[in-house]
């Protein structure tokens, strides 16, 4: 039964599923990073998500920002690498929802806007640089656009936007991160971090819509 909004417990449950999905996708993510980078993206994300699960399991969250921020902090302090900061920043963007008892469509839009701004500010990459930003920014923009829709509708649109962004990243030339100078040889492969973004959003969608 689709959920119109999530309380902190449901948000926590959803993040557990997100973590499991990323951990399960480790070989896929590592392969994607092998094509363009140094092949460790899946390992790093799995390390971060295992730490996140521990933090989530510790529980004690009263508002929806808390499990989001706990996830981000756990990733930031366990992963290292580019994605530790980048994905840590994504989830820490949930601090915009401070005090909210429910995560709804406008909340989703707020969180993702903060996430996208934070990542771009921290890492200096822009859309088109073939990073996870190419999945995150379209997702954030879509979330803003659809914030009047129901949460299931909104998150479905967001997941689709991220997916389209990840697909679009295939045609881009990598310039950031480990893949810096692959240049034109990077064309045809999706960015590993963008792939992670799509797994995160599609898992959220599946939880919210089910």
């Amino acid at each position, binding site marked *: 039964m689709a959920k119109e909004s999530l309380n902190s417990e449901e948000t926590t449950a959803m993040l557990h599923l997100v973590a499991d999905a990323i951990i399960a996708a480790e070989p896929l993510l590592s392969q994607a990073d092998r094509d363009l980078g140094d092949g460790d993206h899946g390992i790093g994300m799995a390390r971060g998500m295992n730490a996140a699960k521990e933090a989530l399991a510790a529980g004690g969250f009263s508002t929806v920002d808390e499990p989001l921020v706990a996830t981000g902090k756990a990733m930031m*302090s366990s*992963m290292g*690498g580019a994605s530790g900061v980048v994905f840590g920043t994504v989830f820490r963007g949930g601090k915009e929802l401070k005090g909210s008892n429910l995560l709804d469509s406008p909340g989703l839009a707020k969180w993702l806007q903060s996430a996208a701004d934070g990542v771009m500010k921290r890492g200096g990459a822009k859309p088109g640089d073939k990073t996870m930003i190419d999945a995150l920014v379209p997702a954030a923009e879509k979330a803003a656009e659809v914030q009047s829709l129901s949460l299931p509708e909104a998150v479905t649109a967001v997941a689709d936007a991220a997916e389209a962004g990840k697909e679009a990243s295939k045609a881009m030339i990598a310039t950031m991160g480990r893949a810096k100078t692959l240049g034109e040889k990077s064309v045809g492969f999706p960015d590993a971090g963008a792939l992670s973004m799509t797994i995160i959003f599609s898992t959220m969608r599946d939880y919210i819509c089910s």
Partner: protein
Amino acid sequence: MSLTQKKLINDPLNVADELLDGLVDAYDGECVKVGRRSIVKSNIPDNKVALLVGGGSGHEPIYHGLVGRNLADGAACGDIFAAPTPDIVLEATQAVNKGNGVLFLYGNYAGDVMNFDIGAEDAEDEDIDVRTVLIWDDVCSAPPTEKEKRRGIAGLVPIVKMAGAASQTATSLDQLEAAAKKIVLQTRSVGVSMSPGSIPATGMPTFNIDADKIGLGMGIHGEPGVAEIPMTTADELTPMMLDLIFKDFTEDPEVESLKPGDEVVFFVNSLGSTTMMECLICLKKAKQFLNERGVTIYDTMVGPLVTCQEMSGISFSVTRLDDELKSYWNPACESICYSKMETITA
């Protein structure tokens, strides 16, 4: 030879922590482990301007092997091929800080910059003075006009050697920062790779390359470089690589061209399984190339100091010296990565 390198490890997900413990052991008390994964000298003098290095593990003996006598005061170590977390950076910074500030000196990778920057912000919240000098010696990773996009590769060893010496006498963080910037500016490298290393946790190679190809300009994680060229001889490849370094000194408006009379520290690095034999054969040709251009080798470094597991490949690094830089090169130093006696000057 088997297809997959057989590695003597325990838990493949735990190699970074275990190797750091081993490294601390190797220092026989001279260094201690600090926080989650930093290694720090045990006896940093009060008021010393501190030098902190760091980066991902898996490239041993760098980066953490560069902590030592007349070298770095500490290193913040990440997991395999992953920058250290901000927490680790902060812990290392707190430990090396002796009241006169800390210079962060590390390779320019997105992950490292982001994590060290957050660590620096956290340290500044505690009133620790932090400056950052990035190492970007890989001339194949971006044009000289976009140095901020360049990677740090093997040049970091002579750079940290000299910055370490400079840090012994620096009286302010300003002074050490200026010295490090100058050393970095004069250091340029070019790498090649013939075959990948493998990630301990997955057993998978970090990249693929055809059996008859060399990746020219390839980075230390196998980041592709300027071209894939057919496998060739040491004598053919060496001038191609050095030409790229000379070209860079020429094209970069921030430095003079390499010219007759210049003195350099020359470093032939193996990326892992390339033998010292090969490094020396390349060195022979390189010395001839430099001689023909009137450039004198002041001192030579050779060996597998900046590796990527069992990757095969080499890199050349050139640091042009002036009297100031010589004064940083000459002193003895000792660490697991690189040691020397004091240079005998005539």
